[in-house]
């Protein structure tokens, strides 16, 4: 499997550390209700199909949001977590 790092280019999966769904990047406000925190930390759409998830490119230190498909392993693109659009 090969993952596109927006900085370094497409690299072998072995250069990356996986975190999980992009839900982890959307942190609730400190005073958000408990349900929001439960959803942030635990509950997942867990789609069989297109998804966006978070990968760390260990060599360059960039957190990358990858647009890919969990059913086919197709990778459609990626962006930097720090510069991610809201689309």
């Amino acid at each position, binding site marked *: *499997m*090969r993952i596109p790092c927006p900085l370094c280019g*497409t690299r*072998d*999966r072995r250069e990356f*550390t996986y*975190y999980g769904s992009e839900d*982890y*990047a959307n*942190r*609730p406000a*400190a005073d*958000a209700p*408990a349900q929001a*925190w439960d959803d*942030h*930390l635990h509950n997942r759409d867990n789609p069989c199909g297109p998804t966006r998830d*978070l990968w*760390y490119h*260990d060599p360059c*230190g*960039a*957190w990358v949001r990858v647009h890919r498909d969990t059913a*086919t*392993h*197709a*990778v459609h693109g990626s962006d*930097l*977590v*720090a*510069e991610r659009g809201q689309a």
Partner: protein
Amino acid sequence: MSGYRLSAGGLVDRSQTVRFTFDGLPFTGYHGDTLASALLGNGVQVVGRSFKYHRPRGVLTAGSEEPNALVEVLDGAQKTPNVRATVQEIFPGLAAQAQNAWPSRNLDLMAVNDLLSPFLSAGFYYKTFMWPRAFWERLYEPLIRRAAGLGRLSGRHDESRYEKVFAFCDVLVIGSGPAGLMAALAAARSGARVIVADEDARMGGRLLADRPEIDGMPGDLWAAQVLEDLAGMPNVRLMPRTTVVGAHDQGTYAALERVSLHRAAPGDAPREAFWRIVAKRTVLAAGALERGIAFCNNDRPGIMLAGAARAYVHRYGVAPGQRVAVFGTTDSARQTARALQAAGVQVAALIDPREDASTLEDFKVIRGAVVTDTQGRKGLRRVQVRQGSNTFALEADSLLVSGGWNPSVHLACHMNGRPVWDDGIAAFVPKPGAVPGLDACGAAAGRFSTAACLQDGLRAGLAAVADLGLAAPALTAPQAEDGSYDITRLWHVPGKGRAWLDFANDVTVKDVMLSAQEGFRSVEHMKRYTTQGMAPDQGKNSNVAALAVLADATGQTIPGTGTTTFRPPYTPVSIAAMGGGGRASGFAPQRFLTSDAASRERGAPMIEAGLWYRPSYFPRPGETGWEVACDREVRMVRSAVGVCDVSTLGKIDIQGADAGRFLDFVYTNTFSTLPVGKVRYGLMLREDGHVMDDGTTARLGAQHYVMTTTTAAAGQVMRHLDFVAQAHCPDWDVRMISVTEQWAQFAVAGPRARDLLRAVLDDLPDLPFMGCAEVGLYGIRGRLFRISFSGELGFELAVPARFGESLFRDLVGRAETLSGGPYGMEALNVLRIEKGLITHAEIHGRTTAFDIGMAKMVSPKKDCIGKAAAARPGMHGPDREQLVGLRPVQPGQRLTAGAHLFTPGEDVKRENDQGYVTSVGPSPSLGWIGLGFLKNGRARVGEMVRLVDHLRGLDLLCEVCDPVFLDPAGEKLRG
């Protein structure tokens, strides 16, 4: 004796005789022979025994799909089981043995199973061996295990060399037959970077086995010409002896190269290399595999696939028998009969089930006929033929069978795409697009004539080139035979006896029928119930026929029955090849301290800690065991001064206008208010509210901090900080980088620490506890932190790593003049337990700030990572196990980490479990002491608990105490 070496012909080098042994007997072959061709050339017919019934078996194929001729090669630690004799090239001194036979392949006592076969039908073992219960493990299972299996491992470490390689190309061509060569030529001439991989030692594919005429020349010569052309191009890499075994995501292919398995003395060359090939486009030109026909006793030695027989004649100059019969449903059979006759082999008859088959041959053609049975236990003697209502016998020592050809669809199916049934050829073909970027062509796509293969290969090559945006070269396919493929479907000739499908696992037509009878009617159920297709050939020879039999039994069509899943690897790959480089210390990098050599010189046993090697203790002459040394080192620190290399701790440099604010966010406590020149202990939570790590962070400047992490968590913390910065506060001005390796850092601890530092530093600054400063020493700059992990007056001195070893030697030498010296991990551990300081033994991932008595460190004034989740009801309260100190009621008793705690008087059982011990150590002043977690522990200080360690036979009473055993007011470290 049946097979023999023809007096001429073949592509072997008859000028080079090669001597080898099989089952201890000497044989000779020629350079270029496989073990199978050499054995056939020597008339050896029985090469092994079958898996279940231990039937004598001979060579069936001429490729890696061979189900029968699996042998052990080499001896001692080099012994290699389950080697395909059809792939293994002979070399001088090669020693091979038959396997799965006892005492020998010719007299195998396990063959009694063959007589018991009525009772050993599919799945019989699920129905019996259950009584009495204990007999399964003691009697039945050991018997089954001994009878099963194939070859033997040596039981000794595989010390050989293996290699892994990465490669990249524009076009990967898999297979070098007519289709592959044309594809490669098209791609290469366009300027694309091309890799051509072929399983065989010699490239050319079926062109070598069939030698069809191409542009007026024999196919093998045409192939040689094209290969020479390709070899001369700098953008082409030819990889013979290389099997592409797996198609993975984004154009990544796994391939196994047999680098030196054919060499008598490989020297330092690897045995095998495991390639990871990344290709923009792939042309699958892996050809097709011939399949047999199920008839009674179709597994006897001497029965071979028809196409394989042609390969033995043309490629190796070997005849499969003295008098051969040929039986087949396609013209492959006729072609074989002709080829053998042309080579001078006596052809008994061609048996063709087609009523309209031509009889115009120089040999007898029996049309509208089938083979119904065979005779000859250790070698074929007679073939029973039925033509219409007549049955008669043919004398033959070899029967060559063709039931049609199956395209090698495997790689095209590795990404879950199922192949598609093609009724015209009665076989499955690859589903286009099933593997992105992969295009099947030639026989692999069901196009069987040489001309069609050449044209289709060219098409695939040009298509790949066009996809890549390269200019197509001017290239046309050469002229070649273009016959149509005519097949009569014949999967199974009905009869009374056993007709084999899966030779390797001994699965017969009856087994598949029984499976359907018992309700195992889906193809996956049938496979799993009968083990059809699960043997070393993975059903390459038999799966399609088995499907057909199942479809027949269940009244479904073959495509309606479907296939089982194709999974990597295409051919089996050694663990050593895929694990190349992992042997011994190669599994993970080794990290060495700058003080490593100095510690080892002092005899320190080194222990592994997060890839690093750290000294356990520094033994002195006469000291026996670690406890004596540890005791001395602890006393030394408490009474004089000790030196310890703490460079393994993670160090992260954090700078920027928002650095303080950022630290406030990742730590539970506040750092933005920390004065420059001061150090603070910080507690870091995971977002789920549990403790991630702890350590000290120093403020070096207004916008400059350096954070310390534990050794184990250094990488995790760096990744976490990057995540928080990039995901949650990307606009903050924070810059982070690891400086762990830049600094060699040494703890200098004990009442005489200042004396030691004064001798080393240009000027010892008057640092308060938790202060830091830059210092000068020996003409260089270092950093001095007044922090302590021992409870003593303590400093950590950091210098650029190049000076680490020298400074360590200097500090230790000077410490010794002050009655001090180095101390290791054991003493460090006792020192910190005496002070109730925690490590990852305590913050093991399930502990909260509340558990370790640090709830108050979670600042109420600000948000921080983990704060919200830490507020969940289950994360605090009296039901939680809390950090406590433990000391035995009877002085001198030993404690053990891993023991569990109980309330005295209660039964020792899970329901009553009160907690457990995490760390223990022998304190010179207090005896054995420990840290542990106890339910509602802080409220129970002063109570007795019962400590039980079943595994080490310990059961004693302890007093619960505060985790800080020594100097609770901290007078020593502030002194």
